[in-house]
């Protein structure tokens, strides 16, 4: 975790600078020159923290998480009575339990994550262009991709700090309320879950940075990001439903054709990044989840119901994780392609 330590170091520097202004900067002077890239990341983080946008986003996310934490904690005692196998992972329940009034923590993160990613990135490049600062920065001796990379790194750092803080806060609150410390495996599962959330938000962030490179107006790029998000959460499942209905085999069809049908439905759903994320997170947070796509009776034959060890759960979500990272890299690639050889006019 050497990288995180490094990130925290300059993240801390940026907060310090933001809170205490230039007076402390005088004292902070050092002889060492920092690399231009770090200077850019520092500036971006400072900008984000000062902006109302991030404050509002943090407010929304913290509030909803407090809400879901509250419902989870009030419902935990009911769960404790049930003598089922899942009670072995009591602590993870804090993240997944809901009584139906408010969604659970992980559902909330899955819902608000894209919003956060889009709102952190939608004006990354085009607002600089509109303010006329892009050509000024690019007239300095820095490689052009530093702009994209610094924007991405800064926002990812913000997101990861926020998510890790939230996860640890939820854990801490759970610890106080329940009184049972998490096992090492539960702790690791939560860490992996948080990492996965960061990757998920990073995807949306990258997508919105891509739109900010492509579209000149910030409103257009924000709208494009939201459109993609809405498409995948609302319309795409609908379309998949309509399409797969045409192939639906009859009740009496052979097992193979039913299996193939389910397989088709499953793979069509896999295109959605939000589906990938929710599959991966629910697998990580519910150890009893043994599989993600459809299974045949033969495959199920002889299985002993019980939770999977962490390594197996990770193996199960590996395709989902690589898928998310792959789409993120694809977005990056397209932004690079659009940005690197573009002519930069002053305004």
């Amino acid at each position: 975790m050497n990288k995180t330590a490094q990130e925290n170091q300059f993240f801390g520097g940026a907060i310090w600078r933001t809170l205490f202004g230039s007076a402390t900067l005088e004292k902070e002077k050092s002889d060492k020159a920092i690399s231009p890239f770090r200077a850019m990341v520092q500036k971006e983080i400072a900008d984000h923290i000062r902006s109302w946008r991030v404050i509002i986003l943090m407010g929304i996310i913290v509030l909803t998480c407090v809400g879901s934490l509250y419902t989870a904690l009030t419902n935990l005692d009911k769960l404790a009575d049930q003598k089922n196998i899942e009670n072995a992972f009591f602590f993870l329940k804090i993240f997944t339990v809901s009584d139906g009034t408010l969604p659970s923590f992980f559902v909330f993160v899955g819902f608000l994550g894209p919003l956060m990613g889009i709102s952190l990135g939608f004006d990354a490049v085009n607002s600089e262009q509109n303010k006329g600062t892009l050509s000024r920065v690019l007239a300095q001796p820095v490689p052009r991709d530093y702009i994209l990379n610094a924007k991405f790194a800064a926002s990812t750092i913000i997101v990861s700090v926020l998510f890790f803080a939230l996860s640890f806060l939820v854990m801490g609150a759970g610890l106080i309320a329940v009184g049972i410390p998490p096992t090492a495996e539960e702790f690791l599962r939560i860490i992996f879950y948080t990492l996965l959330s960061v990757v998920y938000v990073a995807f949306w962030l990258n997508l919105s940075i891509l739109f900010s490179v492509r579209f000149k107006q910030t409103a257009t790029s924000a709208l494009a990001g939201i459109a993609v998000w809405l498409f995948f959460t609302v319309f795409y499942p609908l379309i998949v439903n309509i399409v797969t209905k045409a192939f639906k085999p009859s009740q009496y069809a052979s097992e193979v054709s039913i299996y193939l049908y389910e397989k088709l439905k499953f793979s069509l759903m896999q295109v959605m990044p939000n589906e990938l994320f929710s599959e991966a997170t629910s697998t990580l947070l519910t150890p009893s989840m043994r599989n993600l796509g459809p299974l045949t009776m033969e495959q199920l034959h002889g299985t002993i119901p019980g939770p999977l060890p962490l390594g197996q759960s990770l193996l199960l979500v590996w395709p989902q994780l690589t898928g998310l990272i792959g789409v993120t890299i694809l977005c990056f690639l397209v932004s690079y392609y659009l940005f690197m050889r573009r002519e930069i006019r002053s305004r």
Partner: protein
Amino acid sequence: MGNHVIEISDLTKKYGSYTAVDKLNLTLEKGEIFGLLGPNGAGKSTTILMLMGLSEPHSGKVQVCGINPERQPIEVKKKVGYLPEDIGFYEDLTGLENLVYTARLNGMSDEKAYEKATSLLARVGLAHEGDKKTGKYSRGMRQRLGLADVLVKTPEVIILDEPTLSIDPAGVKDFLELIVQLSREEGITVLFSSHHLHQVQQVCDRVGIFVKGKLLAQGNVNSLAKQLFSTSAYTIEAEIAPNGSQENLGTGDSQIQDLTNQIKSINGVEEVKSNGNKYIIEGNDDVSTEVAKTIVGSSLGLSMLRRKEYGLDDIYYRYFEGGNPDE
């Protein structure tokens, strides 16, 4: 060759079928102030973008300080300061912070960055506004901060794209003086693009006239006049005082005719127009002394002799207002 800071040869840039810059050839010597004068849309900014490696040429070669900006833009940007047409700053940062950020992008340590930024702010006359947010700066202040921003990296060349746009006249004067001072004191080569001829005339050692992607002429203001007004680089206005009274007006007429012929025979005179007592003599050389001698030597008296000099104004209007003369 060593003294050529900027070398442009056969540079062409096309946007689709539209040619923005057409086979441009230009060299800038070290330490000179070169004015790129042209109307809007002539391709000045495009040329500058290509010098900075912010746009790719269609064909032709560009060398800035011996480096190709298309291949090694970062090396060029280390040596060249560029003040874009409408410079933007991070408005929620102070002027000082903006400069410090630029300094850090140039790889300076915090301490050096602060030193440099503070001294530059003083240099451009913004010492007391350094702690103000740039969002509250006036246009003129922003432009001066922009100049400071360009100077942060101690450039060898500065490229200013329409730097005086929408600053008030007093501000323009200060700004231009600052540029001249900088260039003279630190030997910085300046490329200055503008469509304000007076400003260009005021500060530039050499001027290039740039119209529709082509450099029509270049040189200092006098030699430009020679190039562009090839037949009439010098115009002399003379007024004669007819001696004698109204009665021998007839002889006066013939005297005037004689004089006209005499002046015409002077070496270098191209055309003589007379209008009553006034002569307008166009020549391709400075013939005022000869003309004066001839008039005084004749029986007519000389009451006024004036050499008319062509300013950039005339050059400008001849090119941009009066349509394109044939080359």
